Structure formats: structure tokens, C-alpha cells
């Protein structure tokens, strides 16, 4: 404990600056996204293992087929969300000051960019198979 120059008690100094009131939401979102992500990601892995990955026609056909685009969009959206929540905790734990703010913004924008690209790509493949 660092030496205290204030007359306020340790409890008093903590009471005024406590929880930011969104910790539970973060914790809950992390778990909820994890539970959705586990089956989705396992489904993608098993599908990749069964696909002829070198053949573009087969891959595009699989991406656009049936419920696959729906599940892929969900996987990307929930995956990016879960990843952003996790990276936020890591950055907040290990980085201080201006670099922390910069990294938090970089992580947020990066995740949104990746999610947008992934979802756009899935929709592009899926909608083209109608045309």
C-alpha cells in the first residue's frame, strides 16, 4: 500500500470511484458469445475438413448453400464481438495511458473492419448464386 496523504479512509476513497457499472454486461456478453461461438466455430472447422479447399467452385457452392451463409454471418459477427471483448480485457490489463486508448480504438476499428469484410464476402458469394 502506498503512503496516504489524505485523511479519507481507504473505504471512502474507493466508494466514490467504484464500478463503472458495465462490468457485469461485459462479463455476461463474453460468456453468451462464447456459448454461441463454440458450436459455430466447430461447425466451420468440420466443414473445412470435409471440403475440397483447393477447388473454388466447391468452396463457393458450400459458402452459398442453404443455411451456410446465415451461420457464417453469425460466426463472423459473434466471433468478432467475442474477440473484441477479449482483446479489450487484455489491453486494459497490460497497457496504461495514451497507448491504452490508442490500442482500444485500434482493436475496435480492426474488429469492425474484419467483421464487415467477412460478412460482405459471404453475402456476395451467397447472393451471386441466385443470379
Amino acid at each position, binding site marked *: 500500500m502506498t503512503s496516504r496523504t489524505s485523511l479519507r479512509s481507504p473505504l471512502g476513497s474507493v466508494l466514490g470511484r467504484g464500478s463503472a457499472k458495465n462490468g457485469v454486461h461485459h462479463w455476461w456478453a463474453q460468456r453468451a458469445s462464447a*456459448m454461441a461461438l463454440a458450436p459455430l466455430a466447430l461447425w466451420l472447422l468440420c466443414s*473445412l475438413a470435409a471440403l475440397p479447399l483447393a477447388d473454388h467452385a466447391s468452396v463457393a457452392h458450400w459458402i452459398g448453400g442453404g443455411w451456410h451463409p446465415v451461420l457464417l454471418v453469425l460466426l*463472423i459477427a459473434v466471433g468478432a464481438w467475442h474477440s473484441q471483448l477479449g*482483446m479489450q480485457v*487484455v489491453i486494459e490489463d497490460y497497457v496504461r495511458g495514451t497507448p491504452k486508448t490508442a490500442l482500444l480504438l485500434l482493436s475496435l476499428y480492426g474488429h469492425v473492419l*474484419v467483421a464487415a469484410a467477412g460478412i460482405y*464476402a459471404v453475402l*456476395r458469394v451467397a447472393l451471386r448464386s441466385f443470379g
Partner: protein
Amino acid sequence: MRARPTSPHTTIYTFRTMAFSLAHRVTGIVLAFGLVVLAYWLMAAAGGEDSYGAALAVLSFRVCKLLLWVLLAAFLYHLVSGLRHLSWDLVLGMEKRQTRVSSVLVVLLVLALLGLFTWLLFFRTVAP
């Protein structure tokens, strides 16, 4: 800012707890970059046969294949270890002895799945 209370650091835990917790974080960070690879692969597929072929050529470099394998290993660890964390959230298996057993189970399950998917994805070609 004055020194604020911080959450417990890695050093207060046993080595095993620290190592598994750290591995969960490190694999999570690796997987954030895995999302980039997934988006790259999907964008390449959306671009048509030529762009897909170009991306496949990049991903087929030996160093890229190694990185993809690291990604696979990170995913499998994060998945299995994540299930262990979720069970702790339900206050299941939190006794000292149970956590020791489940840590061994995590390693065994990850190694088994890694062996299986390494063979399926890297040592087998599926005909179109």
C-alpha cells in the same frame, strides 16, 4: 492517477493455474488474427476463381501453412479451455483436485483433436 486496486496478478497463483490461464489469453490473441485470415479467405472466395487461386497460393507457402497450423492448435486449446472456464462459471469442478484433473483432460483432449484435425486438414486431399 493514484495507485488503484488491481485484480490479482499471475504471480499469486500456482504455476499450473497461471500457465493455463495465460495460454487461454495467448491463444485468444492468436485467434483475433485468425479472424483476419477467415475474412481474407472469404474475400478471396467472393472475388472469383482468380483471386481465390492467388490467396490459396499465398496460404500454401510453408510458413503460412505453419501459421495456419498454429491457428488450428490455438483454436482447439481456446475451445476446450473455454469450456472449462464456462463450467467454472457454473461453479462446477472448482475444487483443487478437480481443477488438476481437468487441466490434464484439457491437454489430452486438445492433443487428440489436434492430431485428428492436423490429419484431416493438412495430410489429406478431398476430391471435388
